[in-house]
Structures are given as C-alpha cells and as structure tokens.
C-alpha cells in the first residue's frame, strides 16, 4: 500500500481536515478528514442520518462547517466559495430540478445562469437531452417524468459545463434496476472524461460497483476507508445464510454451525433462518455437512457477499440503524 505516496503526489480533488457540523446539540458531522485524489469515483457509504449528505453539502458550499477546513479543487472552501462553485456541480438527494418546468426549460435555465446566450443555451440543452436519452421528453413537464428520467435530467443539468468535481447525493435511491444501471453507466462515462465524482449511497453493492475508494460513515465519523476489496477483506469473505425445514431445530443448528465455523451465528427474524460469518468458503460445506449428519434438514442455503448491515456489524459491532426519524425532518 502506498496511500501516503498517493495523497502527496497526486493533485487532490478534496482535502478536508476535521470537518464538524452541529445542528443544535447533535453533531451531524463529527470530525471528518478526507484526501480524495482527482479523477476517481469516491463513495460515502452509510445509513440514513450518518452525516453523508451534510458533509457533501459543506463541501459544495451549501453549509458552513462549524469547525475544520477544506480545499476543494485547490480552493479554500471558506475563503473562496465562489471559486469552488465554478469547479463543482451538485445533484442533490431530492431531485434538484424544477418539476413544474419541462426538461428542456430546466437545462436552458441552468445554461442561462452560467452565462450562455439564449441561442447557445438552447443548443446545449438539446445536445444534453439527446446524450442522456431524454430527447422525447424534452417538452414534457418534469412532474410527469419517471424517477430514473428525473435523475438523468438532474445529472444533465450538472453537465451544462462539465464540472471538475460532481457531487451525487444518493443517485439511485428509489430507482428500479434498469434505471439504476443507466445512472451507473453515466457515472462511469463521466469519470473517463476526467470529472471526479463524489457520491453518497446506502448500498454496498453500488459503492462496490462504482467507487474506486469508499469511506464508511457512521454517526458523523469515518469508521473505515479503503477500496471495496480492502473493506470486504476486513469483513470476512462472506456470509452463509441457511433456512431450515423445521424451525424447532434452529437452536441445535445454531450450536452445530458455530462449532463447525468458529464464528458467531446470528438468528434472523425469519424463525427458520440463521446467518453466520465465514472465514473462507470451504468452511461452508463443512458446516452444511455437520447439519446433514445430525438429520437437520435444510430448505435453502446461500453464500452471500457481506451486506451493508454486515459491514456495519463488523466495523461497529452493531447493525446499521436508520436514524432518519431520530434526527427529525431535514429541511
């Protein structure tokens, strides 16, 4: 590993030291340090209310940090917010397009605000609609768009002038798999053109697919950082899920599995199901053989990648909790 070398020699898209944001007594962001190299996709992974969006909003100049400092694309966040704004674009968690207007009007609006003449703004707007597969919906009110179309329009609006750094806040939350794949393709295409992407997500799968590096955030702190491979290695090679034919045999099965695997076995909410961490895949067949030898019948089993819950369980010792309700309505 040559992390130190990387951060010292490559130009950084974001360098942050000790960012803190308080909302009343609640420390939404509680001391975050970042060193994000240019030209990569960087993922913030964490449950709702972990502080991902708040951190992103600070880096996009929408919120002033209470403590700490940051440089975004070489500009000081506090001293040169306007210089930062010329280098970044933001696609917010709640679609940041105007749903009362139609697709092309939304893009013309942003292009005009960037300073383009009316004629060039129109040209650029239709060019982007075409590239993002929205040409047929150009004259349709955004209210009537599907979630995926809205997201694509939202990203297109951020691309009027391609930014050096794009903030994407939960780009695929609530999308169907096909729309999600389209967004993933867009992000991949974007990075090849040289834009650095910082995205937040609740899905390990998404971070795994897209992000070159991932920061796992919980309670306003980074609790782990690295490539997805490094994070998975820290969680173990996977999880064995077993569903029994007869729920009454679960206690015995739990004992047998933990003896065979040497790792703790969790009881799932399904009364017939259990799950256990695996040190290696070979252990799985041994564990299943142990069940068989004791006449415990298995209806299903699967070997899964660790889920976000499991990453959290390993990193924090407790499951990822949804803190949205606790934190109250965000405005």
């Amino acid at each position, binding site marked *: 590993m040559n992390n130190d070398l990387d951060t010292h020699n490559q130009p950084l898209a974001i360098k942050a030291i000790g960012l803190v944001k308080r*909302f009343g007594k609640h420390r939404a962001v509680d001391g975050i340090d970042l060193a994000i190299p240019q030209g990569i996709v960087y993922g913030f992974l964490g449950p709702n209310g972990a502080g991902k969006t708040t951190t992103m*909003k600070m880096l*996009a*100049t*929408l*919120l*002033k940090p209470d403590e700490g400092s940051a440089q975004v694309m070489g500009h000081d966040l506090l001293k040169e917010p*306007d210089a930062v*704004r*010329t280098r*970044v*674009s*933001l*696609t*917010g*968690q*709640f*679609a*940041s*397009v*105007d*749903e*009362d*207007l139609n697709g092309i*009007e939304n893009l013309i*609006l*942003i292009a*005009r*605000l*960037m*300073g*383009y*003449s009316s004629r*060039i703004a129109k040209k*650029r707007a239709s*060019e*982007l609609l*075409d*590239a*993002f*597969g929205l040409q047929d919906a150009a004259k349709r*009110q955004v209210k009537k768009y599907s979630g995926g179309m809205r997201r694509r329009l939202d990203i297109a*609006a*951020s*691309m*009027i*002038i*391609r930014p050096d750094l794009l903030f994407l806040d939960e780009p695929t939350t609530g999308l169907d798999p096909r729309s999600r794949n389209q967004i993933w*393709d*867009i992000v991949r*295409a*974007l990075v*090849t*053109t040289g*834009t650095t992407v910082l995205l937040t997500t609740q899905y390990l799968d998404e971070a795994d697919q897209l992000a070159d590096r991932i920061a796992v955030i919980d309670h306003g702190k980074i609790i782990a950082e690295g490539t997805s491979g490094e994070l998975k290695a820290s969680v173990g090679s996977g999880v064995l899920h077993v569903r029994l034919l007869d729920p009454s045999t679960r206690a015995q099965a739990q004992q047998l599995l933990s003896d065979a695997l040497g790792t703790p076995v969790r009881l799932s909410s399904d009364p017939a199901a259990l799950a256990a961490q695996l040190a290696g895949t070979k252990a799985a067949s041994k564990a299943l053989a142990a069940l068989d030898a004791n006449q415990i019948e298995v209806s299903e089993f699967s070997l899964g990648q660790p889920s976000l819950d499991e990453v959290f369980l390993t990193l924090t010792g407790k499951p990822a909790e949804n803190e949205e309700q606790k934190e109250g*309505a*965000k*405005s």
Partner: protein
Amino acid sequence: MSEEQSMAKMRAALVEQERPPRPNGIATSLTFAWRALLKIKYVPEQLLDVTFFPVMFTLMFTYLFGGALAGSTSQYLQFLIPGILVQTVVFTTVYTGVSLNDDISKGTFDRFRSLPIWSPSPLVGALIADTVRYTIASIIVIVLGLILGFRPAGTILEIIAGIILVLIFAFSLSWIFTVIGLILQTSKAVMGISMTLLFPVTFASNIFVDPATMPGWLRATVNANPVSMLTTAVRGLMGGRVAFTEIIWVLIASAVLILIFSPITMYLYRNKR
C-alpha cells in the same frame, strides 16, 4: 442505438465546454424571473389570487358597505378604489413567501445555491416576477373600478405613478414574507402567520373608512400605519392632489423594510440547512 453508440454520444456531450463570461446579478435575476413566469404557463391557477380576489373584494366592499359608509356606492367608489388597489397588492405579497417556501422544500434551491452566481438572484428574480403579478392585480382593480364608475381626477401619468408607488411598497414589503417563508417549515404555516400579520395592518388603516370617527389612540395608530400613508399617497395621485409628504414617507418606509429584511432574508437563505 447500440450501447457503445450511446456511450460515445454521451462522451461527446461531455467534452470540455468553453465557459462564457460570468453573467452579472441583473442577468441572473432576470433569468430567475423568467423561470417564475414560465410556471404561470403550467399552473395558471396561481393567477387566481391576482384576478379573482381583487374582483371579489372590490364588488363586496362597494355594494355591501359602500352605501352605508359613504351615502352612495358611486361616491364610495371614488374613495375605495385607490385603497382596494393597495389592499389587493399588499395581500398578494403573501404568496411570495408561500411560493419561496414551497420552492425551497423541493430541493431546487440546493442547486441554485451551489452555482457561481450573485447569490441573492434567485430571490430577487422571484420578487421581480411577483411584481409582474402585482401589476396584473393593479390593472384589474383599476379597470374594474372604471367600469363600475370610478372617475379619477388625476392624469394618466398620475394614476400610473400611483400604481408604481404601490409596486415599490409591495416589493419592499415582500422581504418580510421571504423571511417568514425561510423560517417556517411548511407553506401552510407561512400562509397562516402572514395573513394574521396582514389583516390588522390593512384593516387598521384608512383603506375602507376615514379614521376621523375613530377613538384618538386608534386614529394615531392608523395614521402612523405605512399602509395608510400609501393609501393617502395613492388617493392623492389619482385624485389630482399630489401628497408629497406621504409619498416621501412611503419611500422611506420601503427603504427601511428593504434595509432590515433583505439582509435577514439573505442570512437565512445562505444558512438554510
């Protein structure tokens, strides 16, 4: 279209764009005004408050109270029309706060705030568009008044000056509602609080009645009310007797409103979560 073709198209659209010179605050404000006016095309109902309400108020006050208050409805019209113009436009300013609150809750403003533009321009643009709405309301009141029998003694220019004075005051007053719109959580709450504020301010004025018969303390309050001064100024302009003192007071009140409430609005806007 194949996957590769569409990807190639996407990459072509994402090549480095030449950045045009940064637009000034007036240009961006006007662009935001254009955005607000475009919405009327999609939601024409939002003109209801500037069309239906003025008509309703004028007819209601003229025919229900006019005879009793001024002896005859036609006499009351001469007194009422400048006042109802003030009342209509002042009430319309509430919608500035309501629509700002709606807009912000939808997340569109997050993008606006992250753009390299003069930061008050989304708000100033919205207020410019609202001024267009106030103008529509003013014209409706005056035209309806003329149809019903309002016969102003002032010249056309004086009548226009009266309308412009109302617009200046309304633009300034709107900044109070942008503050309320930014503080409260829902647009319903904005509506409720704003109406609660506006009712006493407009009714404890000389819009509907001459304050001469009021008890002394109330008369003093009514006369000090900027809405009364505006009404007197507009009556003067439309009646051909220009009331310079009141006009100057209205301009001072407008300047004070902007000086106090626009910085508060901007502070709240910049620090909105």
